[in-house]
């Protein structure tokens, strides 16, 4: 680690020019009793503004974003984030509006949110939306709480949610938070949801089935209609994890496939920046029969205009304070308006085209795990090489690109036998030339893996730090590697410690 802001602190530097001359020097001891006042300094760093700027500018340079180059992180949809959205999200009437302002003073905001919810409904084939959820996982939880409230309103107790074994880790975690037991449905050798396993698990304890389509293998679930019919016959609801919606805009809508409730990820499909891990936004859409259960407030329109409706007796309540991630939602709104219906459809077409192009070009070295035509991302195997997918991915860093998604890294979790799989999502905003360069880098590492596997296994070699092996998230390395990888440098649990507070 480079010097921290604490290391460059120079006591006495900060705070210049902050004083309000009308109030002069202030002495907090006149307002609070001595026992409640701090007796020691907080310990915050003190630097001048130029030092601050240089410190954080340098740290920013030691990161890698979509603007730096290819970022084919599967299931995360690292597409270009348009610059024109940034100043618009920061207009005074948005950025400086207080969420507790009288409702009559925010009519522009209500109108924007109302229309955005309508656009999401049209795109997804659902009837109504809440924009409150803070992220995709939060949208899942919202949807599952709505499912739960619906069953409860009918006096029914169902406590199981069925989930594909390849689902995002958030699916089972959200189901747990909503009070459900999770049962995993296995995948067939071809990569589809195993209908027999689903059939066997469907009984009157099942509240909902969560399906990601296209799946995290990048495959379109061809039996989706049959699944919907069976789930509904069983009296259960069908939940759509919209993380992979980027492949379907204007082509097919979850609502038309029979899904009852879903979440979208604006930071994936709708180009809102990933912001180093958030804030995202996870709007949740439902069919009309679930509308009464949406969290409050719901933005509605009547003769007076647009307004937030809180008078909703069957609502599940609130998922978070206020109206959701407004500045993120504004960017999604801008994206939809800029693209228009054709532009969105073209985006999905190109996302699928790019992924298939990459899959086809790489398949001689890195064959697709399931062999089928992929949607917006492809799952390729490194099994033919003499290095693991993990090693392979780390070597890509030396070639100046962000690695694809691996087991447990990135947003997805694959069943155990897919340890040697990489999920590659190029997104539609990569040109053919950019894809060709990316493919060349993959092929180069594949060649290196055959010719000089040690070079690959010990990568990256060009970054400020070497390879970091994350225990827990990737599991133990295969036996022959464990020996070679010098266990004494293995970062064991004991080293995973939060730094001690400085001693006073």
């Amino acid at each position, binding site marked *: 680690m480079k010097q921290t802001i604490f290391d460059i602190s120079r006591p006495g530097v900060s705070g210049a020019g902050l004083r309000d001359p009308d109030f002069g020097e202030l002495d907090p001891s006149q307002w609070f009793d001595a026992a409640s006042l701090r007796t020691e300094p907080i310990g915050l760093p003190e630097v001048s503004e130029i030092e601050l700027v240089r410190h954080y500018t340098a740290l920013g340079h030691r990161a890698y974003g979509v603007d730096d180059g290819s970022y084919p992180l599967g299931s995360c949809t690292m597409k270009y984030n348009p610059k024109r959205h940034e100043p618009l999200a920061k207009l005074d009437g948005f950025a400086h509006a207080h969420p507790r302002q009288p409702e009559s003073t925010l009519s522009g905001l209500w109108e924007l949110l109302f229309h955005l919810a309508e656009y999401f409904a049209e795109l997804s084939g659902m009837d109504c939306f809440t924009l409150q959820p803070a992220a995709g996982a939060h949208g899942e939880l919202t949807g599952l709480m709505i499912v739960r409230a619906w069953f409860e309103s009918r006096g029914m107790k169902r406590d199981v949610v069925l989930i594909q074994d390849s689902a995002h*880790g958030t699916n089972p975690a959200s189901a747990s938070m909503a009070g459900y037991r999770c049962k995993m449905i296995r995948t067939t050798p071809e990569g589809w949801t195993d209908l027999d396993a689903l059939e066997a698990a469907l009984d009157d304890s099942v509240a909902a089935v969560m399906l990601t389509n296209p799946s995290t293998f990048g495959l379109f679930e061809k039996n989706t209609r049959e699944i919907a019919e069976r789930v509904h016959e069983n009296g259960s609801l069908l939940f759509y994890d919209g993380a992979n919606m980027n492949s379907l805009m204007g082509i097919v809508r979850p609502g038309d496939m029979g899904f009852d409730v879903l979440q979208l990820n604006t930071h994936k499909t709708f180009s809102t920046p990933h912001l180093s891990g958030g804030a995202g936004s996870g709007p949740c859409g439902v069919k009309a029969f679930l509308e009464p259960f949406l969290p409050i407030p719901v933005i509605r329109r009547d003769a007076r205009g647009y307004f937030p409706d809180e008078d909703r007796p069957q609502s599940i309540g609130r998922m978070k304070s206020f109206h959701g991630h407004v500045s993120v939602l504004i960017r999604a709104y801008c994206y939809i308006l800029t693209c228009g219906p054709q532009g969105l459809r073209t985006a999905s077409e190109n996302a699928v085209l790019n992924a298939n192009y990459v899959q086809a070009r790489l398949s001689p070295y890195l064959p697709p795990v399931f062999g089928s035509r992929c949607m917006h991302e492809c799952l390729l195997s490194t099994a033919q090489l003499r290095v693991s997918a993990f090693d392979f991915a780390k070597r890509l860093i030396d070639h100046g690109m962000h690695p694809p998604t691996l087991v447990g890294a990135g947003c997805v979790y694959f069943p155990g036998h897919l340890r040697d799989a990489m999920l590659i999502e190029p997104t539609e905003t990569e040109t053919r030339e950019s894809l060709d360069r990316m493919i060349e880098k993959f092929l180069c590492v594949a060649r290196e893996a055959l010719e000089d596997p040690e070079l690959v296994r010990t990568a990256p070699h060009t970054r400020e730090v070497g390879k970091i092996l994350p225990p827990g998230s990737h599991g133990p390395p295969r036996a022959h590697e464990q020996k070679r990888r010098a266990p004494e440098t293995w970062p064991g649990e004991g080293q995973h410690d939060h730094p001690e507070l400085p001693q006073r």
Partner: protein
Amino acid sequence: MENHPEPLICGYNVHRQADRKAMLEALGLTSIAELFSPIPQDVRLGRELRLPAPHSEWALGRHLRELAGRNASTRSHLSFLGGGVYEHHIPAVVDSLTSSEELLTAYTPYQPELSQGLLQILFEYQRMLSLLTGLRVVNSSLYDGATAMAEAAWMACAATGRRRVLASSRIWSEWKAVLELYMRGRGVEAAYVAADPVSGRLDLRSLQESFARPAATFILQTPNSLGILEDIPAAAALCRQHEALLNVSCYPMMLALLKPPGELGADIVTCEGQPLGLPLSAGGPSLGVLACTKRLREFMPGRLVGEVRDIHGKPALALIMQQREQQVSREKATSNICSNQAHQAMRAAIYLAALGERGFRELAAQCAAKARYFREKLLTIAGVEPAATGPFFNEFALRLPCPVPVFLERMLERRVFAGLEVDGNLLVAVTEVRARAELDEAADLFAETIGVLKQ
């Protein structure tokens, strides 16, 4: 012309017709439709989406400015609104630094070798918030103050094995709703503890009685929904007596001047982090701060950045203890949180570093001083009285001699957001951004309006 990109009408798409054709040929295909052959015909949309036609950049700008222009804001009105989120000044350098493309367009630092800069900013954030809260471990980060409170409640349940939580009745009403929803999901009972009507503080006897049945935790918000600072040590003593964890939700600005809750006996501290350099943004995104003792670390939701070593033994930063998280432990994870508020946490770190030790303390002192100045002025208005006698920080509740909703409406006509109605009282927040002249003018307007309404 043949090089003219087709996407003039197609948003951010990059392929020309010729590119698509060549790429399809490389796949042995002749049309885009063939790419979608795995999708059964009967589920396809088969029509164009009914969405507005594409907007040019200037048309989009005009439209958004028109919408924004119809909103009032703390820039167009004089505001005394608080209730969990506050109008603080954000130094321009915070916006400037957090607008760098790397911080905007990177994803979660799953690849630490590529992300040491991001990890270090989050690491610094964790340390700064650790200093503010007085607790060893801080995550990076949760969605907002309300969800942080709810996640912290579950942490306590997981750590104690109990399925009952107690909370002060004086927490923001929206946060109560979030807490109740999260607890309903987890099958946890939530019960409220009354406040003393005179001081506005927690009624310790009620808390004692509520512990008649075991509880995992007691959640105390300070300042509470009447702006009153709570007695953390007293609550901590009762919690210890009943082996419950003390969960304190607080306004981060008060931590500049007042003893950190971690030193006063809190096991978990949460904050709504919006005051730390985040624009109000009509409520989001804000920042959920979560801090806890080392003992509770394994129950913590969300990302943790820590020191590890690379394969050469060199120190580095990485996301640690991921076995708590959904991408590893799935249904057994401490939470489902994945995307979080990393960027907002970075803003908070840069904001605190920009102000520094002295700046942050000065700013908090100004909030308290200006609130006191304004409150004194308002208390000279006939019929205006304090709603509670307990100590406050920069937000205070008053009883008015006229109906609060009507008063607020009249003040709105004068372009003033005069405060919030809480249980029939007027809750007024004052921050460093108010000038003395503004406070003087506002006090006159309060007096005039109350005078008219009283008649």
